[in-house]
């Protein structure tokens, strides 16, 4: 039977998946563009009707309001741009301190939850289950309104050993003031850190080529702590302290830590630590028991097993979710607006927005800042993750 070559009819173009795909995408893009265009069109019209200026001209106008905490010079005759930087620095300050303390507390609780001690494990579990299931905002309000605002008034301040005071206006600590000659201990500290890093690199290289261990920990301690302290003693302690003086209505001098700041820091640390504890627990549990057993059978001591076998493998599992917890903490610091800590959202998306009325620009800048922080943190952590990730084939 001879094959008859019947020319098959070409299927209609509408059934071609490529053509369909392109058509769908064109429709989608057109829709998105139309939505964006109509949003912009409406916004321009609405803004014109409300007589609200647009553009970023307000950046260099005088702000005219005070801020209770600022790391850089700021007064009510400074510009909106300056207020933005004050808010951003305050956000970064609370986020950085929060990340440090939450990591420490989170690791302690996460490891406690795996303890063989029944009571310790149960208490850590109770902490995690309770704290995780209560909204952060409620915790912040509790710390601020029910704890810190309920402290005694200035007159009956609680004295803290070492010359500090605690009252419902905040925490007042002695402020170190540098005297002439104070630069030498700082130089010694910088030198110590550089030398310690160099020593570590050298010790690692030597260990890899000869197998000999060097006392890295003690050398680092000596270089970073002992040397600067010795220089400090030799230069005759060129540091004076300005002690807070308790008055009838207010406290003068010293470092003032706002109750808003303390409440925000407490809340963020306690809340995030519960999540970090779970991350740490999952990470440690992910290292199979065979790894520990193999390390023991090679004769490693428990501490060395933990340091050289378990932790490096657990870190691989811990780092990615830990990063997202750090980002969550940074984003959650925006809840400062509820208790009046002058962070970026409170100053910029709050006061500046209300005064200028330029919602689009202000919100766009605020969001851009958080996006940048998120992307930079993720990028840094990804870099670190790349270094410690398992290299397979």
């Amino acid at each position, binding site marked *: 039977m001879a094959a008859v070559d019947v020319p098959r009819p070409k299927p209609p173009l509408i059934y071609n998946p490529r053509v369909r*795909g392109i058509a*769908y*995408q064109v429709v*989608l*893009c057109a829709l*998105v563009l139309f939505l964006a265009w*109509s*949003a912009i069109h*409406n*916004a321009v*019209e*609405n*803004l014109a*009707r409300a007589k609200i200026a647009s553009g970023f001209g307000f950046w260099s106008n005088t702000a005219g309001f005070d801020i209770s905490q600022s790391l850089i010079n700021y007064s009510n005759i400074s510009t909106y741009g300056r207020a933005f930087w004050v808010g951003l620095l305050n956000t970064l300050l609370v986020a950085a301190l929060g990340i440090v303390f939450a990591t420490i507390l989170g690791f302690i609780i996460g490891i406690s939850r795996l*303890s*063989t*001690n*029944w*009571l*310790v494990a149960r*208490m850590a579990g109770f902490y995690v*289950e*309770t704290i*995780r*299931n*209560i*909204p*952060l*905002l*409620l915790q912040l*309000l*509790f710390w601020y*309104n*029910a704890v810190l605002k*309920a402290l005694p008034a200035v007159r009956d301040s609680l004295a803290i050993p070492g010359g500090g005071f605690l009252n419902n206006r905040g925490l007042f600590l002695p402020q170190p003031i540098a005297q002439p000659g104070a630069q030498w201990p700082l130089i010694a500290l910088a030198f110590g850190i550089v030398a310690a890093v160099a020593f570590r690199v050298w010790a690692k290289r030597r260990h890899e080529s000869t197998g000999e261990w060097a006392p890295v920990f003690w050398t680092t301690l000596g270089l970073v702590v002992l040397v600067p302290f010795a220089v400090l003693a030799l230069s005759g302690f060129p540091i004076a302290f300005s002690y807070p003086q308790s008055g009838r209505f207010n406290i003068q001098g010293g470092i003032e830590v706002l109750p808003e700041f303390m409440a925000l820091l407490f809340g963020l640390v306690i809340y995030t630590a519960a999540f970090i504890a779970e991350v740490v627990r999952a990470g440690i549990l992910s290292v199979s028991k065979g790894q520990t057993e193999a390390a023991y059978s090679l004769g490693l001591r428990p501490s060395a097993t933990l340091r050289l076998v378990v932790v490096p493998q657990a870190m691989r599992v811990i780092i990615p979710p830990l990063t997202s917890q750090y*980002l969550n903490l940074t*984003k*959650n610091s*925006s*809840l400062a*607006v*509820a208790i009046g800590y002058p962070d970026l*959202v409170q100053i910029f*998306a709050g006061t500046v*927005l209300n005064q200028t009325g330029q*919602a*689009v620009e202000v*919100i766009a800048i*605020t*969001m851009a800042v*958080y*996006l940048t922080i*998120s*992307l930079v943190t993720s990028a840094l952590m990804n870099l670190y993750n790349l270094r410690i990730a398992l290299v397979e084939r």
Partner: protein
Amino acid sequence: MSDIATQTDAKLMEGPAFVRAGTVAALPPPVRYAGALGWLRANLLSSPLNIALTVICVLLVLWLLPPLVKFLIVDAVWDGAGRADCLARPDHPEMGACWAFVFERINFFIYGFYPIDERWRVNVFFALLAVAVVWMAWLEAPRRDIGVIYFFIVMPIASIVLLLGFPSMGLSRVPTSSWGGVLVTVVVAAVGIVASLPIGIVLALGRRSRMPAVRLLSVLFIEFVRGVPLITVLFMASVMLPLFVPETWSPDKLLRALVGVALFSAAYMAEVVRAGLQAIPKGQFEGAMAVGLSYWQSMRLVILPQALTITIPNIVNTTIGLFKDTTLVFVVGIFDFLMTIESARVDPNWATPVTSTTGYVFAAMFYLVFCYGMSRYARTIERRLAVGERR
């Protein structure tokens, strides 16, 4: 070789160094690790470090627990009419929690300013929602396909009619500005989950699509929303949304917040669903294609049922986060449960040194019960799903 042999022989010739004459005393029995005492020894007192930790923990519990019980129960005021009952008096010098305040204000905490005569509508709404939640959460429930339609279509429409009012059906209009309390918290959470799941599924599919424009738009949306705090999204919804629509629309304040919450949780839901999709082996996609199913058919009949089932625990965890995040709607001036407590605690009729703490403890218990319940449910499902993997 022979050297060593002769040396050993010589040693043996000297005779044995020591021969035991009597029987050895029996060793003491091994430490008991059974029974209550054994349990204590194994779990609390196994090493000096553990003993120290146990002592510290016991001290911590002793330091925290009695004042807590004293405050919450022993010294608490259970009934009263005003702040005078919750102030310390000579016969009641140490004041505990002022539960009378909570009891008196409970209706405000649940309904906000919803008109008293119309509150039955809110109760019916809670019942409708409870039916929907049980139908969805109970995996052996009958006709879950109808349940999905009920959850995503019937219940939302019925709730809108019921809560907002429909004058021609005899239900008077209740503006959203008088909603409040638990009602608003539940509405925000329910709208968040009902809206975010479908949008999240579409975004997740879009992120895995082979069409570059679809993928790019999905990724941009998801990463943008996940990179900013919810508060800024709510600010944006509240101040920018009215600018972006024609002036005549002027969306309702609650609606703006709902749009913000729905878009925000949709981005998180999309990532959860994407994780589920990634866990489905490629053979399932290929098998569906091989039997001639179209893209949407294969998604609806083969992929999504499997992907969503394994994601239930994560969906519930996202819901827990959403439920806690509903508290943030305060920034756009909406009275959710926490805000009703915030406003009631400074009410001069009840303002005492213990009122704030009482209010916060009550709120914490509310959120704790719901969130903990949800997380237990997620864990149960997780265990059930893991049955097949168990060895």
